[in-house]
């Protein structure tokens, strides 16, 4: 991709096509974050668009103190959180994990049925990730799909790097436990 500084300069100079390059570069990352945080598929498109509109609106304030991916991830994370607060203020399953305790966190996943047996490992895993608290889902997404470090994830989520590490470890431990107890080895090897 073109040097990010010159790309930002072009956008601020009024070259909207240059912003298209930024969307192409980070669209997948924003899609990952939004899809993992916002449960409603119908809302995801609007939220993802809102993320990039905020990026566009605030681009003049980006001073390259962090990587652009981290900055955009932070906007995506806060946009999703704001959306979730407005959309479903009383829903408890997106509360911070400390509040309920990860081990006692209820899963919305039903017992495996015929459809689950046929589902690929990726779909099974995606379903189980969806049952995790929102901060766990986000940390897993940024670490495994975007290759961010603990500190970069912490910057995006407004958390210390140590907390991010703890979230990741607990999320994986919970996932492993649920996969092992709910699905047979054959399911996971489909």
């Amino acid at each position, binding site marked *: 991709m073109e040097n990010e500084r010159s790309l930002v300069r072009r956008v601020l100079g009024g070259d909207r096509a240059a912003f298209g390059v930024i969307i192409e570069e980070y669209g997948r990352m924003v899609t990952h974050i939004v899809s993992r945080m916002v449960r409603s598929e119908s809302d995801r498109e609007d939220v993802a668009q809102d993320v990039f509109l905020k990026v566009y609106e605030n*681009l003049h304030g980006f001073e390259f103190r962090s990587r652009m991916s981290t900055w955009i991830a932070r906007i995506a994370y806060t946009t999703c959180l704001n959306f979730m607060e407005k959309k479903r203020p009383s829903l408890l399953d997106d509360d911070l994990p400390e509040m309920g305790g990860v081990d006692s966190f209820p899963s919305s996943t039903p017992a495996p049925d015929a459809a689950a047996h046929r589902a690929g490992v990726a779909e099974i895993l995606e379903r189980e990730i969806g049952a995790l608290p929102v901060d766990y889902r986000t940390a897993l997404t940024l670490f495994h799909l975007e290759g961010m470090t603990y500190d970069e994830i912490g910057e995006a989520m407004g958390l210390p790097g140590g907390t991010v590490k703890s979230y990741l470890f607990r999320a994986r431990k919970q996932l492993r436990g649920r996969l092992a107890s709910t699905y047979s080895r054959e399911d*996971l090897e489909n």
Partner: protein
Amino acid sequence: MKHPSADDIQEYLDGISGAEARVLESHLAECADCRARFEEYRDLYAGLGDGRAIPEIRDLPYRVMSRIEAWRSPTKESALEDWVLAICGVLLPTIALVVFVGIGSLAVGLVGLAGGVRDLAVRSMAGPRPTVIAAAAVVVLLVYLANGIALRRARSGSRRS
């Protein structure tokens, strides 16, 4: 080495176990149970790194750019323009108010002079006391500052919609 914990295994897979890595590797070579647990985590990591099950958002660049087309460019000039508008929204009505007060005071004074009421005319043309003028100016400024802020919010709201 004692059997590694889940955290030990994850630190290894995250690449942060440092010098402990070789100790863990040699333990895994000897302990089948730990190796099985390690492989479960390794498979989990492989799955977590595969985002193919996440559906793409269709036409995201096109849709964003369409919405941006309805906007102005986020240049520094446009930010300056916002402030100029806001300041004008405050200053111009204030200046108008002060001028009207001045003209009104002058008019009363002239009427007083024409009617031969000299004391009234002098007092009127002298105008209100400075403290009253200052208080009025502050109130007026606050009112119009609120107007300016409302204007800015309205502008940013219209850009979003």
